């Protein structure tokens, strides 16, 4: 039996299914605050761990879902490689399976891509107790529908990710951050847009408290040439990127409600006079307690984009924006296909799903 090592998980799902008892799928349990209320018996994937296959010259790694992100990154690092989507890491704890299910992409998202851009294949345990594989371990593969990428951001509501194959990228030879004082958030974003429209090796662009930060990555010669053209104060190893990615930055530390708004970069930043952290070159805007849910909802309705109640929201209600009714119907049908008894993380994403 090819899937033998997953027998205990298969049994747990079978048992839960038998009595229709919900399961709360858990990697390292570092994101229990995220999404709607958690119900059900915890099912831990912590024992489903380890790098299964890694050939650096193929740019592909296959890893069990319970493997720590930090552990995986160490192994990649030893070979001069990294994960392109820069998942946030809480050490210890954050697992790679959790990262895929959450679908959080780091600051490089507009430049290097998001989580699904790096997913090549998956081994999945569905709610009806079947273990299947989709995608594969090669970079180009269009055989069958793209179930592997469908799992990204599905919050464990469609299936239990057992194993995943990821495309990895070389760690840049050299990296630096340029700090530019720009008072106005919108001005910073238009500067970002202007720079990204030119062939500079930008891999992150963020703005907070009158300071724009632009990260450049590549060969030293290339980065230096771009840095000269862009200007600003150059620093190496800026801890800022890690701090905002793992939300250890002081911006996130007031303990209040954190809201995430994604908008087309050129949409003016709402309430720039109150605390707001702009990332993804302008497409991502983080708000704190000072800016209310209702007004953010309004601005998103008016100017486009999506609002997510990221942290400390009322989790009995919806925390994510709802897709339109036609798309919602499809979400429910997908749920029925993958998890007909609705035992996997029920309601974690939307009520009734």
């Amino acid at each position: 039996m090819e899937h033998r090592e997953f027998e205990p998980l298969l049994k747990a799902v079978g048992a839960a299914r038998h009595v229709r008892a919900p399961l709360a799928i858990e990697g390292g349990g570092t994101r229990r605050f995220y999404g709607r209320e958690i119900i059900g018996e915890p099912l831990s994937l912590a024992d489903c761990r380890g790098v299964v296959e890694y050939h650096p010259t193929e740019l592909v790694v296959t890893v069990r879902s319970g493997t720590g992100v930090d552990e995986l990154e160490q192994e990649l690092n030893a070979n001069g490689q990294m994960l392109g989507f820069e998942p946030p890491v809480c050490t210890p704890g954050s697992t790679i399976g959790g990262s895929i299910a959450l679908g959080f992409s780091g600051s490089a998202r507009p430049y290097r891509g998001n989580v699904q851009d790096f997913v090549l294949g998956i081994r999945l345990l569905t709610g009806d107790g079947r273990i299947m594989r989709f995608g594969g371990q090669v970079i180009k593969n269009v055989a069958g529908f793209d179930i592997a990428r469908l799992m990204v951001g599905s919050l464990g509501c469609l299936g239990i990710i057992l194993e995943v194959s990821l495309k990895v990228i070389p760690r840049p030879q050299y990296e630096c951050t340029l700090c530019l004082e720009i008072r106005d958030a919108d001005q910073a974003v238009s500067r970002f847009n202007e720079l990204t429209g030119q062939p500079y090796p930008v891999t992150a662009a963020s703005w907070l408290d009158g300071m724009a930060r632009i990260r450049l990555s590549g060969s030293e010669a290339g980065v230096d040439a771009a840095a000269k053209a862009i200007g600003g104060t150059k620093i190496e190893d800026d801890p800022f990127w890690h701090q905002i990615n793992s939300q250890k930055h002081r911006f996130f530390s007031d303990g209040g409600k954190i809201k995430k708004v994604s908008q087309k970069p050129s949409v003016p930043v709402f309430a720039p006079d109150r605390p707001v952290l702009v990332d993804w070159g302008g497409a991502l805007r983080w708000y704190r307690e000072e800016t209310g849910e209702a007004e953010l909802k309004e601005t998103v309705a008016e100017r486009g984009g999506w609002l997510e109640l990221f942290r400390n929201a009322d989790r009995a209600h919806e925390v994510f924006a709802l897709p339109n009714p036609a798309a919602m119907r499809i979400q429910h049908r997908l749920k029925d296909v993958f998890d007909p008894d609705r035992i996997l993380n029920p309601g974690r994403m939307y009520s009734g799903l």
Partner: protein
Amino acid sequence: METGKLEKIFLKALPRRCLVSDRVALRTYECDGLSAYRQPPGLVVLPENTEQVMAALKICRENAIPVVGRGGGTGLSGGALPHPDGIVLSLSKMNRMLEIDPENRIARVQPGVTNLSISKAVEHLGLYYAPDPSSQIACTIGGNIAENAGGVHCLKYGLTVHNVIALKVATIEGDLLEIGDESMTAPGFNLLSLMVGSEGMMGIVVEATVKLLPVPECARVVMGIFESVQDAGDSVAAVIASGIIPAGIEMMDNPAIRAAEAFVNAGYPVDARAILLCELDGIREEVDQQIQAVDRLFRENRATDIRIARDDHERQLFWSGRKAAFPAVGRLSPDYYCIDGTIPRQALGKVLTEIERLSDEYGLRVANVFHAGDGNLHPLILYDAREPGQLEKTIELGSRILNLCIGVGGTITGEHGVGVEKIGEMCTQFTDDERELFHAVRKCLDPQSLLNPGKAIPTLARCAEHGAMHVHEGQLPFPDIERF
């Protein structure tokens, strides 16, 4: 349903000029780029806007008429092969650029826009659309999305799935779904990735928003010449291990080199066992550094000679042979058949040796071009369809090659899609459970299975039959009976 009847039904909702019913004209649509499979459709519908697409789909739903979407008809897996009782919905009239947004670096386009015309339309802004299938002058963005098309530059810049950020999709149930978003996030499950590569079986794309990238400041190309395919393969691994991601890295074997050289005089060494074309792009300083590194790595891996294109003219010349490889091989033989398997690159030597052996066994010549960076092989089998039995033999050899790809941990299709062509091999690559799940997922968007029926995912019955056909080690029973 026969043509006359279909025409009558569709005339109720669509103007005459949007329908093709003439027997001769219908022939134009009988196949895509894989002409071994032909079937004229009952009717061709050419909508001019989204409303007409939706009106046509409504008629199909109400009358249970199969619908095959069609873009440029350049597909290489029979994805746009018509259904005898159904319509072909050709999106070729919906070919406008709707919006170019240089600030956010995105373009909103209709599905029938050709791939190249997007880059052409934004050239003056210093931007381009990255995925560049060799068919880019003729293939459409709708077809690219349905197949998740790739190109020479996709190791560095990604496939279609990495470069499309939002879609409007007309469903057979009558909805206009908005999938993905310009803000780089969208709520709910990730339907965007599901839609890309779904081979026209989940909805008709009526609008796409794509990413635009800045044209690199500088691009240079190195040609490495090798005495063995293995050395060339090792060189690719060495470049990647050094941390360089080339904009493109392509390999050609001796038969492909000879064919291309005879066709375009690109200056290829006709005695080489393999050449590599490696393009590096980015900031000038970086490219200069990387060119030197690649030069060194190729030499360390036993390149017998290295040529660096001196200027843009020579760069284009180097590429011209690779870009013309298919038609060049086409000149050597009345017909050729292109295979699209992908393998882990480390298995290259083994796979090419085995292909050579199979080529001898079947008495059919094979030329290999290879997207070497991402492991996507394109063996081109030369045959003559006029000779009785040759096409069947060719298809069988193709199938053996695909099974070889699966065997080394690869896949049966890297970029051309399954279509009707590789439907048998899907039985080998996926289990019954997996294929059943594909069908179930498809039904979430097309409950009646009217969109491109019979493509991409084989039925269980079909696989049972396929399994039975393989009992005699590749010796198909009844070789002269059509199996498609």
